[in-house]
Each structure stands twice: as structure tokens, then as C-alpha cells.
């Protein structure tokens, strides 16, 4: 699409002129669209949280037992890492707005780094789980494999939701790399930073989901004492 955008004018009966809003370069429209998209993400995770809550009432004791087996240290570290990445993302947007493109780029790189750390910790955690016989598709995770229905369900939902969340982190890293490319080619600048704004919004949602995932999966069984 190479056609030039010429702002248009509509004239009313008194001869007053009104600017016609075009779809090109519509900052507010871009913002609104992305907020709506975030709403669908909330509903998607919302439906999963609802399912989880429902089964928590059905298999109460099993859920608490299964939750106590998760690694709260690694999960906690990840929570802190992700919260910090939200901070760097936000600072990056502030810097972009105030015209400090170099600072903004640095902050985006920092966010990418923290996101990668998050994924690394997550991978370690999943590997540990795997060696303990807790992973999607393993025999020990089937009915009759030694675990109760509730435990299988809990771990199943755990891998589903943290997996989907991890997928969002990966997408986020991709988006940030793309953003850096756009900044370098001058297509995102302090005057035209809707892409930066929307990616920051996305990242906020990703960390917000984790803020709910963490207590739900890791903390419900925190009071159980092993041994």
C-alpha cells in the first residue's frame, strides 16, 4: 500500500470544515484495537481460571497435595524476574515518549534479556518435573498411573496454562525484536510509537496473567509440610 494519505475535509451546511478521520495513522484506533485484543486474551485465560476454580472445588485435597509438589523457589524467582521486566518495559516506553530513543532501545533489550531468563528458569523447572515423572503424556500422568484424578488434572492444567503463558513470552520476545527493527529503520519514533505502546500493553498483560498463575498453582499448597 503505497498511496499517500491526504487528510480530508467535510463541509457542513454552515460552511464549517470538519476533518475526516482516516484509517491511516490513527493512533487512537490502534490503541483501541489492541485493548480489545487484550480483552480476548483475558477471556481466554479467564475461561481456564474458571475451569480451574471449578475443579478445585471438586478435587480440593488433590489440588493442594499436587500444588505442594511444585518448586516455589524457581517459581518465585520467575515472578520477580517478570515483574522487573514489566518495569523495564514501562521505563522504555517512558523514554520513547520523552524522545530518548537510545534509552528506550536499551530498556527493550533488558526486557528481552529478562524474558529469556524467565524462559530459562521455566525450562529448568519443567525438566525437573519431567525427571520426577510429572509431564504431559507420561505414563505416570494417565489414569491408573499412580496419581489421583485431581492430581492429573492439576498438573495437566499447570502445564497447559504455564505453557500457554510461556508461548506468550516467546511471542513477546519476537514482537520486541521486531519493534527494535522498526525503531532502527525509523518507522517507530517518539512521534509515532503506537507499536511500542501496544507491545508494552501486551507485556503488561503477560506479566499480569502470571501474577494470577503464580499464587493459583504454586501457593495453594504452600502450607503443606512434607516429610
Amino acid at each position: 500500500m503505497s498511496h499517500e494519505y491526504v487528510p480530508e475535509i467535510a463541509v457542513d451546511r454552515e460552511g464549517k470544515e470538519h476533518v475526516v478521520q482516516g484509517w491511516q495513522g490513527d493512533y487512537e484506533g490502534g490503541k483501541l484495537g489492541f485493548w480489545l485484543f487484550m480483552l480476548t486474551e483475558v477471556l481466554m485465560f479467564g475461561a481456564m481460571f474458571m475451569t480451574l476454580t471449578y475443579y478445585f472445588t471438586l478435587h480440593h485435597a488433590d489440588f493442594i497435595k499436587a500444588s505442594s509438589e511444585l518448586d516455589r523457589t524457581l517459581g518465585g524467582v520467575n515472578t520477580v524476574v517478570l515483574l522487573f521486566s514489566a518495569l523495564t518495559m514501562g521505563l522504555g516506553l517512558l523514554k520513547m515518549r520523552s524522545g530518548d530513543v537510545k534509552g528506550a532501545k536499551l530498556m527493550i533489550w533488558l526486557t528481552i534479556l529478562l524474558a529469556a531468563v524467565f524462559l530459562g528458569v521455566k525450562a529448568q523447572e519443567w525438566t525437573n518435573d519431567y525427571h520426577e515423572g510429572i509431564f504431559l503424556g507420561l505414563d505416570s500422568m494417565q489414569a491408573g498411573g499412580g496419581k489421583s484424578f485431581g492430581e492429573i488434572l492439576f498438573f495437566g492444567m499447570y502445564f497447559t496454562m504455564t505453557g500457554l503463558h510461556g508461548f506468550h513470552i516467546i511471542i513477546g520476545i519476537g514482537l520486541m525484536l521486531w519493534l527494535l527493527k522498526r525503531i532502527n529503520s525509523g518507522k517507530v519514533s517518539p512521534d509515532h510509537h503506537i507499536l511500542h505502546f501496544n507491545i508494552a500493553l501486551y507485556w503488561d498483560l503477560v506479566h499480569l496473567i502470571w501474577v494470577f498463575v503464580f499464587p493459583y498453582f504454586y501457593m495453594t499448597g504452600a502450607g503443606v509440610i512434607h516429610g
Partner: protein
Amino acid sequence: MSKSYFDETHCAFGHPKSTFMQWMLTVDHKRIGIMYAVVMFTFFFVAVAAALTMRFELFAPGQQFIDAHTFNQAFTLHGVVMVFLFIIPGIPAVFGNIVMPLMIGAKDVSFPRLNWFTFWLYIVGCIVALSSLFNFNIADGSLVFNFADTGWTFYAPYSLNTDTNVVTTLVAAFILGMASILTGLNFLVTIHRLRAPGMDFFKMPLFVWGIYATAWIQLLATPVIGITLVLALLEKYFGIGIFDPAKGGDPVLFQHLFWIYSHPAVYLMILPAFGIMSEIIPAFSRREIFGYRTIALSSAAIAGVGYLVWGHHLFTSGMSDLAKTMFSFLTFFVAIPTGIKFYDWIATMYKGKIILDTPMLWALGTIITFAIGGLSGVTIAMIGADIHLQDTYYTIAHFHYAMLGGVVFLFFAGIHYWFPLVFGKMYSEAKAKFAFYTLFIGFNLLWFPMFIAGYLGMPRRYFDYLPEFHIYHQISFWGAIIFVSGLIFMFYTLIQGMRNGKPTTPNPWNATTLEWHLPSSPPPLENHTKVPYVDFRPYEYHHGQPVVKFDENMKRID
């Protein structure tokens, strides 16, 4: 002769020379709408063929043409294709794309490239759905028909245990759901941001209101079904007992999650159809619409209340009596805004100068068929009656009176109404009217006996039946034959009109909304050359003539 959108286009990327690639890459909302229509109606005929197969089989008791298992696959194919591939993208994807931006004076939708992407996402969904039809046997290179046999509702646990291709069908439904979400998102932003100056929400044409309410449903309800299908896939592949009671799950939860989306989805289908009705009735009565605000707000009310009634699909599935009572009560509420619309339309016609052109005939026919469909819906919203009528032909007849006699009839009305706008040519009125009468008679012959059969106890989805139901199935069969003949004749007429119909002026119906004030017919690439300032209501008529007139610079001259 000025250039129309058929002659030039903007592309998502590049500047392809070939006409074919220009269509494939186009971001023009009008072209995308036409492409949706072509694909959707192709699938529509596939689903009609599946339905006709079932009618043939049911002509007499016992087995005639297909066995019971194939019959199960046939009704699943009919349901899945009709619901997910045809009627859910339906009117928004076609007329929401083609007409809505024209009605609000926009050059395109807010995110044209996203629109292009959405269309292709829809195509990917269609391909995945098609791939679920057959199993390819590598050993002897044969194709085995192995479509899902679960019904379009995919109820667990059966859908998780059957050997047919449920998984690919679920993936297809998920992808099509994504496309639906993105369409809704695009339209919401377009309606919020790109209205012509001066056009506030209560100066929008009512079709735009219908699309607006629909877009919210698409956005808010579809993610839930998406994630439900993902959960079903996880259960199928990893053995997590989410829905299968044998693994500790709860099958009723699947039904809840499924209907939280799929019930609002029927309002998602009907609201833009009501929008089309609200366009046609004033245009062919030459009279300002009665109760503009009530029609606009009742669309929003239906969308809102429609969200809270899904439980009426589960009256026989095991739910607390309190929940049943509440769901039943809320379901009755939907009839109120719907009734308001109907009285408004009829009041619009009162003392109007009614012109019985084809679009108006379709609209009037729909008033009859949808009234039957809607009111029979109220009867099965009653818990007691529903226990008797659930999963019988009564419910099937209700559904088809509402969906086929409501949504699809109004879709056809819209096709006849906007046909001259889209192609700049006119179909043969006489033939189109004949097609309408054939379809209307065939439709009632086809579905009305099912009310009686269902009331007497004929269950849905059955391959065989008792001899006492023979007569109803026979009448239905002949109705189906008339209906399908009418369908073929209607499309023949439309294609004839498209090929060599008489050229029309930009406003052949003397209608008032902005899409009829384009500089040429078919419209130029970027729609209105000049955008008007909207300080008028959408349907102003005086003594049977449109009040608002524009000069060539879209300045008001009345």
C-alpha cells in the same frame, strides 16, 4: 466511465500485475467481502447437499441409501459447515465488509491489512475443516470418508472417544473462531473511529448498529469456545480428565463452556440480519423508520441478555432447579427486545408507500417465518415443555425457522438489496420474485411438519423412525426438493444478473443511507470521493421521497 473497485485495488504487499494476484492480495473491504461470499456459498451448497442426503435417507423408514454411521457423519457435516463456515462469518463477513464502511462514510475498515489476514485465516480454517473429511491411507493410497460423527456440538465424552476426525475439526473451529474475533475487533474499531464527521451513534444506519452489537459478541464470546476446544484436545492427547467422567472430569462443564459461546453465537447471526431488515423496511415503505432508538438499543439489549441464557440448552443435562428457573426466566427476556423490533418494523410500514420489490418480499416473508421461529423458541424456553421437546424435531424446526427463515432469508434479502450496489447491474426482478415464492413455499413445507412430528415424539439425529412419522418425513422431503430447486434458480438468476444484467444508477431503490450516495455504481476504489457532513437521521423521507440530497461534492442541497 469512471474506474470502479473491480478495475483497481490496493494490495497487502507488492504491486502484482495479474488480476488473480490482485484479488488474492487485495485489502479493499468490498473485494474481501465478495471473496467471503463466494467461499461461504460454496460451502453452503456442500452443507445443503449433506442435508438433502439425509432427507433422501429419511424418505422411508429403514435403511435406503446410507448406513447409520454415515448418517451421523452427514448431520455433523451439515452442522459444522453451516455453523462454523457459513453462518457465523455470515452477514458480518460479507455485508459487514462490503456495506458497513460505505454506510459510515469510511474509506475502508480500520485495519485493512488485518482484514486481508483475517480472510486468509478463514480460508486456512476451511482447508483444515476439509482435511478432516477424509483419512488418507498411505499403504494403498485410498481416501476413507472419516468425518466426525458427533454432531456439531462435539459433546464430551463421546467426541473424545470416537475414532473419527474430531481433532482436525476442532482445530478448524478454533482457527475459524480466531478469524471471527479479528473481524469483530476490526469492525468495532472502525465503527468507533471512522464514522463521517457529525455522525454520532444515533445517526448510524441500523445495520451498523447490528454489526456493532455482533462485533462485541464475536469479541467476548469466541475466546471461551476457543479455549474449550483446546482443553478438549489436551484431554484427547494427554489423557487429562477434564471432561470425561471416567478420568475424573465433568462432561456438563463442556456443555456449559460450549454454550457460553454458542448461544450468544445465534444472536451473533441474527443481529446483523435484523439490521438488514431495518434497512429494507424503511427504504421500501418510503417512510422514516418507527422507533429508531428502540431498534438500535434493542440490538444492544439482545446482545447483552443473550449472554446470560446459555443454560437453557442444559435443562435435561443436570443442573440445579434454581439455575434452570433463572435461565428459563432470562430466556423469556430475549423475546422482549426482539418483539420491540418486530412492532417497530410493522409500524414503519403502516401508512407507508409499500413497494413490493424482491428485497421487500424477502423481508416480509421473514417477518412470518421468523415470528414462527421466535415464538416457538419461547415455548421451548419453558422448562416443563422443554423436557418433552428437547432433542426432538420440534427444536430442529424452531432452530431452522429462526436461522434459515430468519438469518439466511434476510441474508438473501440483503443480497437482492445490495446487489446493484456491489455489481452496478440489476438481476431480473420477475425471476427473483419467482425464486422467492418457490423458496418460501418449499421452506414451510420442509420445516412445518417437523413441529408436529417433534411434538409427537420424533427425536432429532435419528437414522430410522417409526412408521407413524412417515407422512411428516414425506412432506418434508417434497418441501426440500422445492426448496433446493428454488435455491438453484435464485443463484442462477443472480449470476445471470451479474453477467448481463442492466446497468443501474447509484441509487436504484431511492434509499437514504450513505452507501447509496456514491459517485458511481459499482463504487470507486476509495468509496465516496468526498465525505459528507452527517447532520441528518439515516432514514428521512417526506411524501415518499428522500429528504437529504447532495451535490457532487457531497454538500447538502435540499
